[in-house]
Structure formats: structure tokens, C-alpha cells
């Protein structure tokens, strides 16, 4: 790992003041579980790290307007174990619990989990791909068994976050600060696809800090589940995952949110599957129809066609568990 300057500011304003106008020179360090690995492999060679893991303004789980406000530097283990999160947004607690290992969850923050970089092996092995400023996605003609089946192109990475699909399903808002100016963005608009920006996965500007996530309480009458399918049983990044939240009234589905992880370059909202469920009783036929609708439009690459029936089955199974 190349050496770097390190500063641990005590206020958000001081931290933001350190940031520059371009990505990659001055970088934010939170849990470090992704960034330090990237630095060891020379994927990132920052001149300076600004440590924000212990920044007071980014800590904690507080009650907010109609839900919870979660500081971006809150640890995943704290979120998974938090009584208010388990009570008001159990979907987020379930998703946080599936991230990595106990040690990872003791180190990694929710903000970092949302901003982590893709696990594509071409990216991680420093191939000059779109993510490194190049103009090729090596997975297209290469080893693509873990790549995107939905919304791919020109880059075919999949978004690796578990908390992101859960937060999209919950309709969360992220708060972003430049130190002086602050804005709130619906989390669905926070993530960007490769057609909008093939080099990056979110809208954060080089001088901005993700400070907080506002999570509305799950609606009354709703049930939710996070299901993650992995190569290994215990911990890994998702082959595919689904965050599903279904709100029923008198046995009829009023609202459904179905968001997929691990299959698209951003958390993918399966709108067609949601539409299939609305106004119906959630039974086997409805769940199967929604599973099929979730993968409608999937275009697998040469080695990842297995992900289509896998995703379909995982969505169906997740929905049935809520019936």
C-alpha cells in the first residue's frame, strides 16, 4: 500500500473542507473494509485520507420524521442489532445482518456499504475497464458468470450492497453534504446505471459526503423479507438477492416493493413484479407470476443465464414467505 497523508477532522465542515474537485485524490475513509483492500491492490492511490468513521455528526440511530435517521458512519452490526431498526424497519436489519462476517459488520458502516465499489474481478484486478476510466467491459467476452442480467451495458457490474435493496424498498432518503450545503435525495436516485455514468455507481460529487439515511417506518399491515442467495451458505456477496415488502389489507395486496441486488449495476426495482401483485391475494399463483415478471427483460451474458431462473425462484420464494 502506498503511503498517504491522514487527517481525522472533528467536524463535518472540516472534513468536507478537505475534499477536492476530483475523485480519487482525497478520499473519505469510514470502515475501510473496501477502500483499504483497493489501496493494497493499487486500485486506488489517494494522496490523502479523511477519516470520518468517528465523526460525531455521522453517528447513531435517532427517531426522525415518520421513521428513523441513521448516521452514515453507523456500524452495520449496530444497525442489525438495533431495537428501533428491528421494530420500525426490520427489512433493513435483516439485510444488514447478511453483510460479510461479524468482523466486517463490526468495522463497516452503512454509508460505506452503500458506496462500496463493485466486486467484478476485472475491476478488482485493475483491468483498464469502464470503472478505471477505460472504454471496455471485459466481462462481455470474458468470465461473466457473476455479472449483470438486467440493465447491463456498457458496463456489466452488479451492485454488491445488501442494505441498498432494502433501503430502496423502504423508500429511504439519503442526505448529502458539502459541509455548507445539504441536499436530500431519494435513494433510488442516488444510484446511477452505467449508461448514465459507466465509471461510477452513485451521484456523489468529489466534494460531497453522505451523512445520513432517513428511513421511513414500514407501513402498517406490511410484511417484509430479505433473501440472499450465495455460492457459499454463510457469507459472500449475493448471486442475487431480493428485498420484498408487501402491504396487504383484507388479504389483498395494496402495495408491493420488490428490489433486486446482485443482478443489475444498481439496486433494481422490479416494477413489473410489483404491478402484478397489486390488487391480488398473495398466493402461490401470484408469487409465481411476480417471480416471472421480476426477470422480464433479462438479457444474460454467455455464462450467467443460470441467474434468470435463480432470481425468479428467489423472488417467488421470498413472496411466499410473506403470504
Amino acid at each position: 500500500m502506498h503511503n498517504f497523508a491522514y487527517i481525522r477532522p472533528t467536524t463535518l465542515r472540516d472534513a468536507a473542507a478537505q475534499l477536492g474537485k476530483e475523485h480519487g485524490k482525497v478520499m473519505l475513509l469510514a470502515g475501510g473494509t473496501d477502500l483499504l483492500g483497493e489501496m493494497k491492490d493499487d486500485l486506488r492511490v489517494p494522496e490523502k485520507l479523511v477519516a470520518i468513521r468517528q465523526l460525531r455528526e455521522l453517528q447513531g440511530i435517532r427517531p426522525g420524521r415518520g421513521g428513523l435517521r441513521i448516521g452514515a458512519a453507523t456500524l452495520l452490526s449496530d444497525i442489525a442489532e438495533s431495537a428501533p431498526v428491528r421494530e420500525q424497519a426490520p427489512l433493513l436489519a435483516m439485510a444488514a445482518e447478511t453483510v460479510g462476517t461479524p468482523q466486517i459488520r463490526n468495522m463497516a458502516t452503512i454509508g460505506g456499504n452503500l458506496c462500496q465499489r463493485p466486486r467484478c474481478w476485472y475491476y478488482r484486478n485493475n483491468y483498464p475497464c469502464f470503472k478505471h476510466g477505460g472504454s471496455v467491459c471485459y466481462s462481455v467476452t470474458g468470465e461473466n458468470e457473476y455479472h449483470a442480467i438486467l440493465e447491463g451495458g456498457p458496463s456489466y457490474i452488479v451492485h454488491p450492497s445488501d442494505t441498498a435493496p432494502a433501503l430502496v424498498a423502504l423508500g429511504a432518503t439519503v442526505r448529502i453534504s458539502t459541509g455548507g450545503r445539504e441536499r436530500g435525495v431519494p435513494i433510488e436516485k442516488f444510484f446511477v446505471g452505467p449508461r448514465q455514468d459507466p465509471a461510477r455507481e452513485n451521484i456523489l460529487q468529489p466534494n460531497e459526503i453522505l451523512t445520513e439515511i432517513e428511513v421511513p417506518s414500514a407501513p402498517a399491515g406490511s410484511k417484509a423479507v430479505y433473501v440472499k442467495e450465495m455460492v457459499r451458505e454463510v457469507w459472500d456477496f449475493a448471486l442475487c438477492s431480493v428485498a420484498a415488502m408487501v402491504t396487504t389489507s383484507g388479504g389483498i395486496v395494496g402495495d408491493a416493493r420488490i428490489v433486486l441486488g446482485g443482478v443489475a449495476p444498481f439496486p433494481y426495482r422490479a416494477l413489473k413484479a410489483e404491478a402484478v401483485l397489486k390488487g391480488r391475494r398473495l398466493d402461490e399463483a401470484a408469487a409465481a407470476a411476480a417471480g416471472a415478471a421480476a426477470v422480464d427483460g433479462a438479457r444474460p451474458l454467455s455464462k450467467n443465464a443460470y441467474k434468470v431462473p435463480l432470481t425468479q425462484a428467489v423472488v417467488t420464494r421470498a413472496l411466499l414467505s410473506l403470504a
Partner: protein
Amino acid sequence: MADEDRDHSDLSVTRRAFLKGGALATGALSSTLIPTPADAQLPVATESDPRRSVVEMTVNGVAYRKEVPNRTTLLQFLREHLTLTGAKMGCDRAQCGACTVVVNGRNVYSCTTLAVEATGAEVLTIEGLAKGDALHPIQQAFIQHSGFQCGFCTSGQIMTTKAFLDRVPRPTEDEARRAMSGNLCRCAAYKRILESVMTASRLMQA
């Protein structure tokens, strides 16, 4: 070690007793002792080089203060600067768990924690578990069940067990399995490791 990584400060260890009464911090960590971020000390950049910092932390009850390059991981700091070689480097990528130590009561991967980030922290390593010749109950349990074969992963397994049992003193086997999932054992002594954890839980209650 590259020359840049050598310790330019005085190598002598400042043996400031951390806990009142000077006892070693063997298992004395509790949630009430975990400093809140606001109380945490800040690392001090050296005047001559912004890429080096003076870090201060308490390891096994002993306070240390050393100047290191910022890129120094906590694992390198423990092994190369403090010569506490109990924590092992396996993958160096937060995947295998051989480097696991307990920082402020939580088990973490020291290979993927910067030493500067641990400034102000209380660190517990395998060297801090035994009291003199008396092994910690977790160590006794691992010996009793032969919870290892080659032993390379064992200090990490034991430190995860320590953090886990301090939080969940009477776990179910399933809870223990999940808690230990971030520590790989290439000899696959998993069954015996699990038995060791469950026995350690009983020994620590006694």
C-alpha cells in the same frame, strides 16, 4: 520492513498502567468502558511528514505511543512495532480472520484496520488473555477439545470467541456457529472449534 516503515521514534515502550490498580486488562472490557467517538483521542500528524502519525493506543492494558507511516495496519503495528506476533497475517484482505483482535470490545480484522484509526482505542490480543501462567478459560477449552490442528488461525478464533462470549455469554450452537463464521480454518477443525466455544461459555460461567 522498508526503511520508511521503520520506527523513528524511541522504541521503548511506555508502560503506563491503564486500569486503576495496574491490573492487566484481561477480559475487563465491557461496553461501559468503550469510549464514545467524542472521547476518542486524535492521532497527531508529525510535523515533518504528513504521511506519518504518532499513534497512541492501549494494548493488553499497556499504553503505547509510536510514530508510524499512515499506511501501517493495526496488524503490522502489533506484529512489527510492538512484536506482539500472536495475531497472524493470513489473507491480508479481511477474509480469513487469522488477524482478528478485539478493539473496544468488538472483534475486527486488524489487517484491514489502520493503526492510526485505532488511536485512542483499547486493543486486546491473544497475548493479553492469560493471567501469568493461568490460561484464560477460552484457551483451556480450545486445548481440552483440540480446537485446532496447525494452530495458525487459533489466536483469531480465540479472540472472536472472547468478543462473542462477552456479548452473548450463553449462546446456542447456532449462534456460536454464526459468530465464528468470519474465522476460517484451513484444517477444517470447525467441529472441535464449536465444541471449544460452547465449553468456554460454560467455563466462563463457572
